[in-house]
């Protein structure tokens, strides 16, 4: 019984309760970091760690937080966690922090964080919150990775910086799709994922 609930908390956000394609949160960063696969991977990983951490902290504090300032308290906790993570990266993994540059700061504004803190961590135990944070982080990451996969492959013919589309294709007249590089294409790809996802999960379809 208990493990079923844990499983649902952890795995639900990967599919039926996905933060991006079902709750439609975090779309803004899905546009910004999905031109290439690598930043998408790192962003997904950072968001997962930070959501999980912030969820646990808020869950531990949940019974002491005054209702009228709870959003501000959540924001302060998120900002503190993000800043600490960014400082630690700068000290111990400088190359990664240079690559992430502005994205790490942007995590503070990621709606998934505030959404999970407010909807889940405020009313659940730390362990559940940890699983929920991990689940939502991974749910966000896989969408990002899928979008980035298609954008990098079709937009520049590469994956993780390695050339995938062979030179002979280009000689035969194949041209990279420049539109894939534009942020609007990320929205269209997310919409396509939602389409396929709703087609598979008929119960999610709105009447």
């Amino acid at each position, binding site marked *: 019984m208990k493990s079923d609930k844990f499983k649902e908390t952890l795995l639900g956000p990967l599919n039926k309760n996905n933060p991006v394609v079902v709750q439609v949160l975090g779309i803004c960063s899905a546009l910004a*970091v999905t*031109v*290439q696969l690598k*930043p998408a991977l790192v962003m997904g990983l950072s968001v997962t760690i930070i959501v999980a951490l912030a969820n646990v902290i808020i869950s531990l504090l*949940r019974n*002491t*937080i*005054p*209702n*009228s*300032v*709870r959003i*501000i*308290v959540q924001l*302060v*906790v998120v*900002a*503190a966690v993000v*800043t*600490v993570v960014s*400082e*630690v990266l*700068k*000290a*111990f993994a*400088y190359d990664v922090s*240079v690559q992430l*540059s*502005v994205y790490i700061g942007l995590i503070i504004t990621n709606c998934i964080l505030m959404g999970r803190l407010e*909807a889940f961590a*405020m*009313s659940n135990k730390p362990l559940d919150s940890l699983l929920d944070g991990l689940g939502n982080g991974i749910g966000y990451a896989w969408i990002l990775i899928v979008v980035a996969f298609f954008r*990098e492959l079709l*937009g*520049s013919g590469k994956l993780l910086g390695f050339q995938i589309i062979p030179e002979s294709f280009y000689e035969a007249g194949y041209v990279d799709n*420049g539109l894939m*590089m534009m942020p609007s294409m990320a929205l269209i790809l997310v919409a396509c994922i939602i389409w396929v996802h709703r087609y598979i999960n008929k119960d999610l379809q709105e009447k």
Partner: protein
Amino acid sequence: MATKKYRCKVCGYIHEGDKAPEKCPVCQAPASEFELIDDNGKAITDKKGINKNSNAYILAYTTIIVVVVALLLSITSGALKARQNANVELDKKKQILSSLPAVVLEGADAAQIYAENIKHIYVLDQNGEIKKDLDPVGDFNYAAGENELLIYMAEINQETKWIIPMNGKGLWGAIWGYIALDDDRNTVNGVFFSHASETPGLGANITTTAFRSQFEGKHLMQNGSFASIAVMKAGQIAAGQDQVDALSGGTITSKGVETMLRTSIAPYEPFLKKVETIVNNNQTETAEETVAEEGGTTL
């Protein structure tokens, strides 16, 4: 009596049970919006007798949170400062060395390569005269004052290279780089570009070898005066200066690179014209010869 009464503070719905419902069935407010009430409908404050919604509690709570977070952040920052500065310094050394195509940084100790190859940091005045000769390791973080220009002198395989730092702006934020010149102070040996937040896959491609290697062998000077290097769309021809191809889809970043080259190197023009200073006689001759030759070809 086992059941307690909970009232939703938002809509007034009263729930009976052991604990507050997860969501108010009327207004969807979360469990935290419910308060315990007695049979007369009066709110019962929790066991500790603290009213979590009183102003005093809120003020005290926020103050404590802010102080704890501030303390945590300053401790983190203080504890990691030294490591971070060392990283920044090492990264800058790597960037300087990256402008030299002859240097292989892959898997090597950048600090050691830097110490071996960068011989001087000179401080120039506006007339291109050397004011100070700094120790490239000890004075690495020397901050140039007003009217002071820094130039790095490297010796790679017995050849002198001059490295000029550059700063500019791209589409979203800062771009910067280093340009290494041969001893004739004209031919580009190599360049390094980096950026804070250019678009990945488009403007951010200024850091790629494909873009950077175009600059190798180009000339900054035309007919003895500074002309810079143009960054042009394919097919366009820049009159009176050497040019490289711009990045497709990264027009503003490419233009930013062009502007950066022009504005950052221009103050060094008096120095670039003085080919005979510092270097010994033997090298001076060869340097002058190449300048003469190039002047001839461009004419």
